[in-house]
């Protein structure tokens, strides 16, 4: 007695890999275009936000409507917030973050490269960096204030420290990117250690350095609000915090969006730079 072949169940069919379409590679994890799904995801979130606020399911105190946030943005743009214009808030925060970022790159990148190249320097600087790296910036914020006062120095320094460790570690591991054949090739032409560093190790570390810079600036923006918690009179973080004290939820949400927008704009710029500077990334 031959049984008819059993049709696989719906879950079995979903779990099975399907042959790929021409132009794609079979079995590559997570391949496929996500653009329209992402657009849809954002649209649905906006719609749900609009729906729950318009139907009055949530009080404006907790979640103001998208229209209210937009209106607040226009109002703050025109009239400023706490006697400071919107652009000044944005500019102050951007300067703090980017000032700290430039500083972290100027010190962190050479130090990271040196740590990758020299066991002596790695041995000296590895313990302090690994010690402070996992500590949340909020935990050492009081120390910053005790040591450096409540003006600009402690704010920039706090943001600087949050970026410094990831930038150092990225540059340090980037040193390992060069293939040993590339290094040997340079030495076989009579290159000095310095030339190998300059012509082989540094360029091949560029992809990891750029990634480290992206990660670093992300940490910077997450630390901004903490840095502007104490004795700030302007800045986006200050704006969000003081708005929350007056329960101006729409300003809080608006401030969050502005921070996100600046951070995303910078990230897009870094990705553009990455495509221009290291088009060979992952291709050799």
């Amino acid at each position, binding site marked *: 007695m031959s049984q008819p072949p059993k049709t696989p169940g719906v879950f079995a069919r979903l779990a099975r890999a399907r042959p790929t379409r021409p132009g794609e590679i079979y079995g590559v994890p997570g391949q496929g275009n996500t653009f329209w799904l992402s657009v849809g995801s954002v649209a649905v979130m906006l719609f749900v936000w609009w729906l729950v606020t318009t139907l009055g399911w949530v009080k404006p105190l907790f979640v103001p409507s998208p229209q209210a946030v937009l209106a607040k943005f226009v109002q703050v743009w025109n009239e400023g917030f706490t006697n400071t214009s919107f652009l000044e808030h944005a500019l102050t925060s951007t300067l703090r973050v980017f000032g700290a970022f430039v500083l972290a790159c100027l010190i962190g990148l050479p130090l990271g490269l040196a740590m990758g190249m020299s066991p002596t320097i790695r041995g000296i600087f590895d313990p302090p960096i690994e010690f402070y790296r996992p500590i949340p910036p909020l935990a050492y914020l009081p120390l910053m204030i005790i040591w450096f006062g409540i003006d600009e120095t402690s704010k920039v320094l706090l943001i600087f420290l949050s970026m410094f460790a990831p930038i150092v570690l990225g540059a340090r591991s980037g040193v390992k990117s060069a*293939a040993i*054949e*590339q290094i*040997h*090739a*340079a*030495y*076989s*032409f*009579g*290159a000095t250690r310095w*030339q190998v560093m300059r*012509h*082989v190790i540094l*360029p*091949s570390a*560029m992809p990891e350095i750029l990634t480290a810079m992206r990660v670093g600036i992300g940490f910077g923006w997450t630390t901004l609000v903490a840095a502007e918690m104490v004795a700030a009179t302007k800045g986006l973080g200050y704006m969000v915090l003081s708005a929350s004290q007056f329960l101006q939820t729409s300003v809080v949400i608006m401030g969050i969006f502005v921070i996100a927008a600046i951070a995303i704009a910078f990230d897009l710029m870094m990705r553009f730079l990455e495509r221009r500077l*290291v*088009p*060979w990334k992952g*291709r*050799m």
Partner: protein
Amino acid sequence: MSLNIDHVSVIYPAADGHPPVAALSDIDLTIAEGEFVVALGASGCGKSTLLNLIAGFLSPSSGTLTLDGRAVTGPGADRAVVFQKHALLPWLNVIENVAFGLQIQGVGKEARHRTANEYIQLLGLDGFQGSPVYKLSGGMQQRVGIARALTCDPKILLMDEPLGALDALTREKAQELILKIWGETRKSVFFITHSVEEALFMGTKLIVMSPRPGRITHTFDLPFSRQFQAGTPARQVKAAPEFIALRETVLNIIFSDEEAVQ
């Protein structure tokens, strides 16, 4: 030019409870001007260790290496290395890669590009000067690697399985190209391969190496590359009875080495 390897041994020190390993034991080898020496052998026979010694990346545990009477004490531009892969610099285009050795030596941009262009022509890469190397095929990348090694006018070319990553057809074409260039430049060559046919076709001298300890067990003088240079087509050279007979002899040596290991 003459490279002399005299009673050279390389012993890797004991580690993790393993006894010391003799990677190379008592190697004697002379590479004369214009010679094309091919090293062949089962894996672990020390071919690459020998190349690293000549390149100066490794110093011998005992014995001496001299190039034109001077001891080899480190890497230098008189010995250029061609690697199997991963050795080009993807942030440089073809001509910049070819000129890289001259750049390291401080040659000005115009002069080094002029020299690079000569070798680009020689290797049939004309028209690709500005191409990014990561967009080239494996065969063309290897030609860039060879051109780069030649630009510094080394006394000897060290080739570490340079054709090992190529497909069979590209590989045969590349063999002929290398022989053609060897004929034109009259460089000495030390060439490592896993392919017996490639070894016989290309070399003027074949050394067969055996593992544990790594040593040279057989040496053959080969006529085939000269036949090819005299105008006999490559396929005809490789189909000749003497070629096939020697191929079988060498294969027997290598297979018995492999079996002895297992």
